[in-house]
Structure formats: C-alpha cells, structure tokens
C-alpha cells in the first residue's frame, strides 16, 4: 500500500470553490467560484480517464458542488461510465424531488455535512440557518427512501460532547454517521486553536469509536491508534499513495487537506492528464518512497500512529517527519509554531466578508 496503487482508492474532486456557506473551518477556503474552473467538456474528460483507470468511485465536494449548473449531468455521466459518485453537500439543493431521483440510483451516495447536533452548535461553525437546511435535506432523503446516506461531521472542541446525539440523529434519519478529523487547512488554519479538540476529548473520541466500529471515519483518526488497540482501517497516511485530490481548476494535490503549492503534483489539463500525474509525477513518486520516522523514531507508538497527519503537521509548522500537533503523548503541541495561517500561499476563495466564529466560544 505504501508504494502506491495503479489508481487511487479515495479520489476527491472539488468541483467548484463556489459555496453558499462560508464555514469557519473550510479546508479549501471556499466561497467564490474560480473563473478558471474546468468546463463541462474538461470535466467529462476527467471522468473518462477515471473510468479507464477503473476508479471505483469519486468523492465529489467543493465548495458546494450542486451549485455547478452541470452538476447532475456530471453525476449521471460518471455513473453511466461505471464510476460511482459520493458527493458532499450542505443540503441546500436536496429538495423532495432531487431526493427522489437520487434514491433511484445504486451508484450515487450522498453525504450531508453538519458540525453540531443542534442548530446553535452547528450554525456557529457553518452559518445561520445551515442546521435547518441540512436537516430538511436529511428528512427529504429519508422520505424518499434513499437508505443509508451519510451524515458527516468534523470533530471539534464544541461537538465532541455530542457524539451520542450525532449517533441518535443518524439513527432517526436512517443514515450512517461519518466523523472526520478537523485539520488546520484553509480557513481551518485560522480557527485551529479555537476549534481543535483537547487531548481529553481525543481520548473520549477514541474510546467512543472503538466501541462503534460501524461509525465511518475515512481513516481520519489513525493518530489516535497510539492510545492502544488500533482503530479499524488502514492506519496510515494515504496521501499520494491511496488518496489524492483534484481541485476545481484541475490541479492535483496529494490529499484533500494540503491545498498548497508544495503538494501540487500537476494539472489534469497537462499532457498525460490525471493518470500520468497519479502514476508518474515527481511528487507522488517521492511520497511513495519509504518515509523516515524522524523525530518519532524513538517513540514506542510509531508503528501504531505512523507519526500522524502530514497536513496537520505542515499547516502548524511542524516538520513532516515530526510528531502530529495532536500527538496523544503530547510530543507535538509544543512544536506548534504557527498560530494562524500556517505556511502562506494556499489558495483562498473566501468571499470578502470577515469570517467569525459565532455564538459559542
């Protein structure tokens, strides 16, 4: 696995940076559309290539991907070519009719994002009214008999206490719960210190997840495996090996959490397209070489946590072979040298309005 695969397992494609929300932790600093966005024809060519590479499914996100006028066309185009689609949405376009259409396909999965189990907690991160919008969409999917769509939550200091409530919410809507790690990328770099979980909360989350192997995590929390029994999953950083990201203008990055020039492997518009970037780019080739354990070599837990998340280290100013900023043994926290935006130079598509944490502090 560490030496790479013929095609990615987890391929994220952010179709647009346009978004009707402006979440304070957005990994891609979304808000405004980038005028260089791939055209419909170019997007179709990317899908053709995925089909040739036998990519099983593509995770479509954004921004809010359903804002693109050709979104539903591209979903159908992918499914017709044998590429399954999972898309992440804030739910704003999932009305009863859309929910009904979605429930007819076996090859489309939907992920609704919320970040709190109640409106107050959620809206302080995602904006006024966003909880209502998301739960309306969930209700529409339930009514349409969609089956187990996903409710996706980024774990923060303010919602770890709501784990049981999230599980209850998922059950109420016949959905599956998916929890992922908050990363200091995009606008998340600005809010990291206020939002990332405390170590006690990480321990709580670890035990909660161990007891509930049915909860999906996208392998997000492998750094917590240093606490004892490993969590289910591959337990490694898949960046450039099993994971990558295509952004709205066709840039290919090592993972969804490192939208930064240092981790850009190429552009799908380059000759050779996506396949040659995945298989031959200098960056991915290098990332598939055996990595040194660096500063973590002497820690007995390295085999369990693999040094943690590359993106979390990068954007907090820690060396890539150093410990994770949320290392459960506390080896990372003193090394966090950057308290806001991390290494500068990542793309910012925020709308020109100030982003503030609302309500809860």
């Amino acid at each position: 696995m560490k030496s790479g695969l013929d095609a990615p397992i987890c391929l994220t494609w952010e179709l647009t940076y346009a978004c009707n929300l402006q979440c304070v932790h957005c990994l891609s600093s979304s808000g405004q559309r980038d005028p260089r966005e791939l055209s419909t024809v170019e997007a179709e060519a990317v899908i053709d290539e995925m089909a040739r590479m036998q990519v099983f499914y593509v995770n479509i996100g954004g921004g809010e991907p359903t804002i693109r006028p050709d979104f539903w066309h591209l979903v159908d185009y992918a499914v017709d070519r044998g590429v399954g689609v999972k898309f992440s949405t804030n739910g704003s376009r999932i009305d009863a009719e859309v929910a009904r259409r979605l429930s007819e396909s076996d090859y489309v999965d939907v992920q609704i994002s919320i970040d709190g189990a109640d409106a107050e907690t959620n809206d302080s991160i995602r904006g006024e009214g966003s909880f209502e919008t998301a739960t309306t969409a969930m209700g529409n999917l339930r009514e349409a008999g969609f089956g187990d769509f996903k409710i996706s939550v980024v774990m923060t200091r303010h919602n770890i206490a709501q784990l049981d409530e999230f599980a209850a919410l998922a059950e109420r809507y016949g959905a599956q719960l998916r929890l992922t790690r908050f990363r200091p990328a995009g606008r998340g770099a600005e809010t990291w210190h206020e939002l990332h979980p405390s170590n006690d909360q990480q321990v709580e989350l670890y035990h909660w997840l161990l007891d509930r192997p049915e909860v999906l995590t996208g392998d997000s929390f492998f750094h917590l495996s240093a606490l004892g029994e490993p969590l289910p999953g591959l337990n490694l950083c898949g960046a450039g090996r099993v994971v990558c990201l295509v952004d709205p203008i066709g840039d290919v990055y090592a993972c969804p959490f490192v939208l930064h020039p240092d981790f850009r492997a190429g552009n799908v518009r380059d000759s050779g397209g996506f396949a040659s970037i995945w298989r031959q780019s200098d960056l991915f080739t290098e990332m598939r070489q055996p990595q040194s354990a660096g500063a973590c070599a002497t820690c007995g837990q390295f085999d369990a946590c693999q040094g943690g998340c590359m993106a979390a280290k990068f954007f907090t100013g820690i060396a890539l072979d150093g410990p994770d900023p949320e290392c459960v043994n506390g080896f990372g926290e003193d090394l966090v040298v950057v308290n806001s935006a991390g290494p500068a130079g990542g793309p910012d598509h925020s709308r020109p309005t100030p982003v503030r944490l609302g309500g809860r502090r």
Partner: protein
Amino acid sequence: MKFDADGAYRLHPKVAIRPEPFGALAYHYDNRRLNFLRAPELVALIESLSDHDSVRQAFRAAGIESHRWPAFETALASLAESEVLVPS
C-alpha cells in the same frame, strides 16, 4: 450462510474488481466496502468461479496446489461473508 467449498459461487453483480500490484481491490457498490485480494491468482480464480459447479472444481481447474486450498478457502469464505461472492 456458511461458506461451502463444494457449492457454486459467483461474483456479486455490483462488485467491481481492479488489478493492483499486490493482487486486486474489490469494491462493492451495495455495502460500499472495499476488499483487498492479496494474491494475484485470486482474481482469475474469482472470475472463473461461475464456470464451475463448485469452488474446489475451480481450484483444480486453476491448477492451485492442494496444500494451498485451505488458505484460498479462508479467503473466499471472507469474501462470501462480505457478499463479494454469492452462491449461484
């Protein structure tokens, strides 16, 4: 249902298989689970299952040495467990 090496099996119609350097990956579009097939011979074997009346017959036809059968049976049983393979 318990796996039966004397029974006939086939690949679930909603499973896609992709060869990889270590063997293959199988993705199930119904339960959305990914399975790792960690032996290159496993792919051809799985694809041949529907041509045979039993799993053991498929082993024989594929020329898999009998001392390796238990390992292959375990692998196929776990694939049947996750519904990558279904009785036919």
